[in-house]
């Protein structure tokens, strides 16, 4: 089964080549960072987390969203997702690995990361996040491999895997909840310290993850004989529509609390994001782009005729992914540090090295995703003819 990853046409090898080049570039950049220290990044004493931790946060959401295909299929026997589930699990595996790499490249002393396991600290959310992510990786690898292997042999999956699949459902919710708790438990950072952060994270995750899955499914069926099915893609679009609408509602709830109470601490962060604070407006264009994309995609996705049109859907999916990426991968983390506890506003801009490392980590994830999907597609293509 695995040998399929080493056989492929020109286009397949070209794609692997692109990932390899980007990975090499990322490695070179990380080498710079490793030898000179994190001073090569745009982070400062005031803004101590930047693009790495932001990407980590965004990707935990993508990973968690596998539950949006696993739950309907295994709990409600929703047949339409039969050929989609394994794609969701593959995406979860690749995303969790990227999350771990983004944490790793952010460490000041990467060689000591194992200290988190050597000195387990139960009161630290970072310890729990590591446990939750590690467990989720194992769960998805195991479930994906066992169910896919059974399917390949045209047999039903073994009974013992069912409870493990059910466990993976709350586990998916837990990874993004614990990631939100990393932020929302800090009394020092008013912008993050909101009870709705975890629900918001989940809502935006259940929009961006399935949107990415839609794109991947459309790409796969364009370039192979394996088709996850129109119905599955349309069901995903419906999930994206609902999740995105809930996300908009949650953002609105948060804005109301801040703006109506009119408390300076709560307002400053939103001012910084949407209008600029004391002339610091680096994120303003991003945020308005994100807001526009969010509103446009919600409205269009809620109209059945547009949502179900598979030639428009990819554009909406891209819009959703970009909107959520801006929300979590650009705005969320940095704004927690603005203004600083001492009232300073320090803008943050990632450096070239930082961006190269970021692209490199994404390339590792997409390389793994390409390999996993190649194996899935190869087996599925054969099954079209060979399974009774």
């Amino acid at each position, binding site marked *: 089964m695995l040998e399929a990853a080493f056989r492929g046409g020109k286009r397949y090898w070209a794609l692997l080549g692109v990932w390899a080049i980007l990975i090499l570039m990322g490695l070179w950049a990380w080498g710079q960072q490793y030898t000179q220290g994190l001073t090569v990044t745009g982070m400062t004493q005031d803004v101590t987390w930047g693009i790495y931790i932001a990407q980590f946060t965004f990707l935990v959401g993508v990973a968690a969203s596998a539950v949006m295909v696993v739950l309907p299929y295994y709990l409600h026997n929703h047949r339409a997702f039969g050929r989609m589930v394994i794609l969701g699990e593959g995406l979860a595996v690749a995303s969790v690995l990227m999350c771990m790499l983004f944490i790793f490249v952010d460490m000041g002393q990467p060689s000591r990361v194992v200290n988190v396991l050597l000195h387990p600290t139960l009161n630290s959310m970072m310890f729990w996040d590591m446990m939750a992510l590690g467990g989720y990786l194992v769960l998805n690898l195991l479930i994906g491999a066992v169910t896919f292997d059974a399917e390949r042999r045209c047999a039903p999956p073994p009974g013992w895997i069912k409870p493990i699949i059910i466990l993976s459902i709350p586990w998916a919710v837990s990874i993004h*909840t614990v990631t939100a708790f990393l932020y929302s438990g800090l009394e020092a950072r008013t912008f993050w310290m909101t009870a709705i952060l975890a629900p918001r994270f989940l809502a935006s995750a259940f929009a961006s993850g399935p949107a990415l899955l839609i794109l991947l499914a459309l790409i796969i069926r364009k370039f192979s004989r394996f088709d996850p099915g129109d119905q599955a893609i349309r069901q995903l679009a419906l999930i994206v529509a609902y999740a995105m609408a809930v996300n908009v509602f949650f953002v609105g709830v948060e804005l109301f609390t801040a703006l109506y109470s009119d408390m300076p601490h709560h307002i400053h962060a939103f001012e910084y994001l949407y209008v600029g604070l004391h002339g610091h407006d680096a994120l303003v264009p991003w945020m308005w782009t994100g807001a526009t994309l969010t509103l446009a995609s919600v409205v269009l996705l809620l109209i059945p005729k547009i949502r179900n049109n598979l030639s428009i859907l990819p554009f909406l999916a891209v819009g959703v992914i970009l909107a959520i990426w801006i929300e979590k991968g650009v705005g969320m983390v940095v704004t927690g540090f603005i203004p600083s506890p001492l009232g300073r506003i320090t803008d943050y801009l990632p450096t070239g090295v930082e961006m190269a490392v970021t692209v490199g980590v994404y390339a590792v994830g997409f390389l793994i995703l390409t390999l996993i999907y190649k194996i899935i597609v190869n087996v599925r293509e054969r099954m079209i003819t060979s399974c009774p």
Partner: protein
Amino acid sequence: MSEKKSRRDFLRDTSAAVLGAGAGLPFLATTGCEQLQDHNLRGSEQQWAMVIDVEKAKDPAVRRACAEACRREHNIPVIEEPGDEIHWIWDETFEHVFEDQVHEHTPEELMETPVLVLCNHCTNPPCVRVCPTKATWKRESDGIVMMDQHRCIGCRYCMAACPYAARSFNWRDPRPFIETDSEGNFPSEYPTRRRGVVEKCNFCAERLRDGLQPACVEAANQVPGAEGVLAFGDLTDPDSEVSRILAEQKTMSRRVALGTGPNVYYVV
């Protein structure tokens, strides 16, 4: 007061247990919150504390003496580049140190008054709560928030958690930025740090061990006319100088509403 506190802890324990169980983390409540409880002063046998006289510390010579003594004592690098500088004790304007004590009619002079700031060695330190490796911890014998630079992984979670910006990260190798004498020796024996770890004020734990006062306290009180600008002592001893000042004078500490329990106080 103590009844109130224990009720608060009970609530926190219970909600953590419920959430923990819900999120598949059944051990969160039992072990995690034991440590969180030591914001009860009786938790540590002693609690070192500092009282800073803001009026006397207006003298720039005092603040310079503090920073200089600290720098020499702990081999602190002098990095000019904004964003990379390392701080243990430094000054910030009154309006930023006590932002909830100023208003639009506060005299400009007070707003701009420089105030010495350093790690508050909180009774309930958020940095200790979040550290994933126990590289920072609250020492039970004397309440100092300690730092183990050999265990720190440089995740900077403590910096996100500190409401006082008391912590600095070594974005680069600090050693070339430490002032040396003509023979290339560092100013003191105190271990230098490497790149990629967090550091902060340690209340001069190494001097206290030898029965000395913290370097900044000693240096500041030697500045002519500034005697008594910094007082240092044990809060659990009712006869100590800090206990006496706190009992007799009007003092403040930073962001009290957050419940961190700072142990650096200010006579204003």
